[in-house]
């Protein structure tokens, strides 16, 4: 039997986490040989792979800007990533998430260095257990850095949820299905900027503020972890 999904008498969640605790996070970069940059990020059972190609010439010549590179982002779920098989055709949800993920990354990449080119970011959800967009943005940020693209800052993301009246960090699928609110946040802490902000559900103004603080603290830690992982990978390369 599964634990009841909520907050127990000890203040812990169904998987034993504290409200402000993330699931175990794993980050790997350089996991793909062909891509200019790549990363695999896991938030608990959620596994997301991101790869970057470019800057490269666009296939359609008109799809360029004279003063900067264009960013193209696809968020896509593998058919076997979900409980019921997902049709490989892009869903409306995937279209929206591709957009907000692109917007969460767009301003940290210094695209002005590569006018008239395209930078492609492919985010593939291999296993979906809640927080796929957050893990995807985190993976994409790592993949962009792994590709050696100049960036103003690194980005990471996490969602805050509200369950049984309490705010909790990094909601998993079980929690999401019973949650009262879901607030995904992405930020570039080194710039002090929130780059993605969505809320699905009902929160008071105070809860929004508190949830946001919770998210931003976690994002700082995630970005710190990104830096460590990237540094290790450079060192490996330099050896």
């Amino acid at each position, binding site marked *: 039997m599964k634990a009841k999904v909520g907050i127990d008498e000890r203040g812990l969640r169904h998987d034993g986490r504290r409200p402000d605790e993330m699931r175990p996070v794993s980050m790997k970069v350089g996991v793909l040989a062909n891509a200019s940059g790549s990363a695999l990020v896991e938030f608990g059972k959620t596994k997301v792979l991101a790869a970057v190609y470019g800057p490269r010439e666009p296939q359609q010549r008109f*799809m*360029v800007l004279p003063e900067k590179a*264009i960013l193209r982002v696809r968020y896509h779920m593998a058919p076997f990533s979900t409980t019921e098989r997902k049709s490989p055709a892009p869903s409306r949800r995937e279209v929206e998430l591709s957009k907000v993920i692109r917007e969460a990354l767009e301003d940290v990449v210094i695209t002005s260095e590569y006018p008239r080119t395209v930078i492609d970011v492919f985010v593939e959800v291999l296993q979906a257990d809640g927080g796929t967009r957050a893990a995807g943005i985190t993976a994409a940020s790592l993949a962009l850095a792994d590709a050696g693209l100049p960036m103003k800052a690194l980005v990471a993301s996490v969602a805050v949820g509200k369950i049984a009246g309490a705010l909790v960090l990094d909601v998993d699928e079980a929690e999401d299905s019973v949650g009262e609110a879901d607030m995904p946040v992405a930020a570039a802490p080194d710039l002090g900027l929130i780059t993605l902000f969505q*809320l699905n559900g009902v929160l008071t103004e105070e809860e929004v503020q508190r949830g946001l603080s919770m998210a931003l603290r976690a994002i700082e830690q995630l970005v710190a972890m990104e830096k460590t992982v990237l540094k290790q990978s450079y060192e490996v390369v330099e050896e």
Partner: protein
Amino acid sequence: MSVTPFRLPVIPALKRQSYLSLYKRGVRDDGRSIRSPRQVEIKVGVLDKAEGSALVKLGNTQVLAGVKVEVTSPFKDSPNQGVLVVHAENVPLASPIFEPGPPDENAIELARVIDRSLREVKAVDLGSLVIRPGEKVWNVWVDIYVLDHDGNLFDASMLAAMAALMNADLPDYEELETGEISLRRGVGGRKIKVDHMVVTVTTAKVGSYIIVDPNFEEEVISDYRLVLAFDEKLRIVGAQKTGSGGMKLEELQEAIKVSKEAAQIYFKVLEQARGGS
């Protein structure tokens, strides 16, 4: 694939500068304050074939929403609930930047933000849309049709959707011996049960200013927009940052404050639209 917009019109730097000078004095090019939405006008019941309809004018922006109902089977995991679907189209006659074809990411985002806002506050009582539990329920389609795009499609569309739903009828029907439901369209049944109202307020960050209800040019020169959804009690019931600029924490705080004020204006207009056609 979501792609950096590469076909938006270019707003001359001078124009941008003139907007900013106005903002400095707290006003806009049409005379309103940076915290005020444009003139809002809602006409309901503008279409006879739709079960509900509303035309919203927000300055020069025009959005038409139509409600159509069908009988369908409920989802397996909610046998005692009707189905609500929001669909939005950026009809090409509304703007030179719209192209014919299936909804793009902007139209999909628009529909999904409205859909989530309606759903989170349980605006429509889905339980009241059941004809025979587990077998036959009402499917309520809300179709958002953007007719003229001069910015802030979110707020205009949300108002149109709400107003159309608040004035929508479920047609009379007959249960045939076969179990099929035969509709008597046009013959007045009961109203769709709308329990709560929700509005969105969109602010935009332009230069160092947070402005309410941006027009199209203001959208183009903005860093990002923030769409906040509110229920009648002014609780935050949804949010979506749109656009690629980063947002500071204090900007969010300011946006919430000014949005709450604007929400009250929208609610007033929406309240007037209730029942009236």
